[in-house]
């Protein structure tokens, strides 16, 4: 028996994995996509299929997140629209790179290696941040971004001081060079198109640090960017007919539910308690993708199985940790405030 071209077991696996990815997305505001492509690669899907299907998944997830955020209104649509051209060109370039490498027979290796480095880098950042984030004596976490200040970082002020025309007025009244906006859009687009990720983990910091949009608006605008990246990426890869709609549907069924539970858990679970597990999971995911690459190079099927077990197992473990902290907190204090939806991919 098959569901949308997938065996029942594989369909259930994708729904379960989508659920875990959704929990991370809802809880951490990221992790929605950069775990999907590696799993598809490890399962033996060709790089273009893995990336294209992941982009379509990003689009669906961004639509759901946008529906959740529809009443918040912290989006600079003008900036988002101006970034669109850069994002679209960047994704096309990223896709051309993938197909060029595919024709040479190197796509799986290069994309896999890029993922090893990416997951390791983000995992190290999260782990280090969790280890260093000891609460300050006054109870604050020492991060001005959390204090609600509408200030922009020094690096953004310095970039804004170079008035390279044409200059564009943003929603908050400040100005930015169209070249900076296009450059950020293009850079994020290349990463999105090459790796099949929404790119929220670089787009949001880029909008904040390089364009100089206040943090609250940067999060919302980044979400709008995820919607555009996902749509353009899914369309671009869809033109080549490499998107597996069965995989996308199964992942969305799980992630839509997981994201709801993950964002609900933010009202009960202190993110600092769980961040270190997320960081370690990303490091293990990096090792898992490396094992998958070794399995391909040396033809050892056991390494592939170990790779898959490590990736899915570590994701399941972090999901259970979030559930454990959440259930414990609800039992101790069932009257906690309602959740605030998260907003990136």
């Amino acid at each position, binding site marked *: 028996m098959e569901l949308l071209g997938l065996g029942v077991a594989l369909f259930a696996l994708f729904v379960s994995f989508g659920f875990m990815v959704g929990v991370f997305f809802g809880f951490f505001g990221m992790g929605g996509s950069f775990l999907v492509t590696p799993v598809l690669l490890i399962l033996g899907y060709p790089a273009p299929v893995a990336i294209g299907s992941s982009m379509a998944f990003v689009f669906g997830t961004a639509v759901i997140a946008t529906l959740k955020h529809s009443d918040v209104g912290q989006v600079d649509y003008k900036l988002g629209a101006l970034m669109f051209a850069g994002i679209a060109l960047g994704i096309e370039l990223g896709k051309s790179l993938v197909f060029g490498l595919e024709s040479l027979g190197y796509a799986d290796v290069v994309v896999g290696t890029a993922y090893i480095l990416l997951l390791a880098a983000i995992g190290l950042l999260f782990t280090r941040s969790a280890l260093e984030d000891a609460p300050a004596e006054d109870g604050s976490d020492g991060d001005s971004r959390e204090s609600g200040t509408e200030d922009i970082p020094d690096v953004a002020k310095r970039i804004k001081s170079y008035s390279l025309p044409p200059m564009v007025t943003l929603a908050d009244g400040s100005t930015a060079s169209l070249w900076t906006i296009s450059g950020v859009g293009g850079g994020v687009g290349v990463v999105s198109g090459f790796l099949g990720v929404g790119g929220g983990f670089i787009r949001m910091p880029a909008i904040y640090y390089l364009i100089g949009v206040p943090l609250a608006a940067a999060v919302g605008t980044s979400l709008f960017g995820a919607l555009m990246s996902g749509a353009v990426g899914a369309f*671009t890869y*869809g033109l080549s007919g490499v998107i597996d709609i069965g995989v996308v549907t199964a992942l*969305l069924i799980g992630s839509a539910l997981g994201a709801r539970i993950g964002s609900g858990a933010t009202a009960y679970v202190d993110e600092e308690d769980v961040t270190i597990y997320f960081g370690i999971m990303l490091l293990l995911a990096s090792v898992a993708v490396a094992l998958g690459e070794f399995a391909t190079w040396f033809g050892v099927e056991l390494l592939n199985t170990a790779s898959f077990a490590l990736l899915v197992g570590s994701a399941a473990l972090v999901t259970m940790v979030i559930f454990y902290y959440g259930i414990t907190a609800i039992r101790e204090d069932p009257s906690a405030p309602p959740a605030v939806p998260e907003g990136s991919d």
Partner: protein
Amino acid sequence: MTGTFVSTAAIRALSLLALVLFEAVVLYVAYSYLEDLAAPVVFERLGRH
């Protein structure tokens, strides 16, 4: 021959986007309904144990 033509591939890609959009909206509405229905029961049971 001149003019603007839409290729089969473009129609296929746009149909796929529309399908994913439709799935996302249906899932969002369905889970919202389920959450309203199930959340009070789940919280009541978790709080009791």
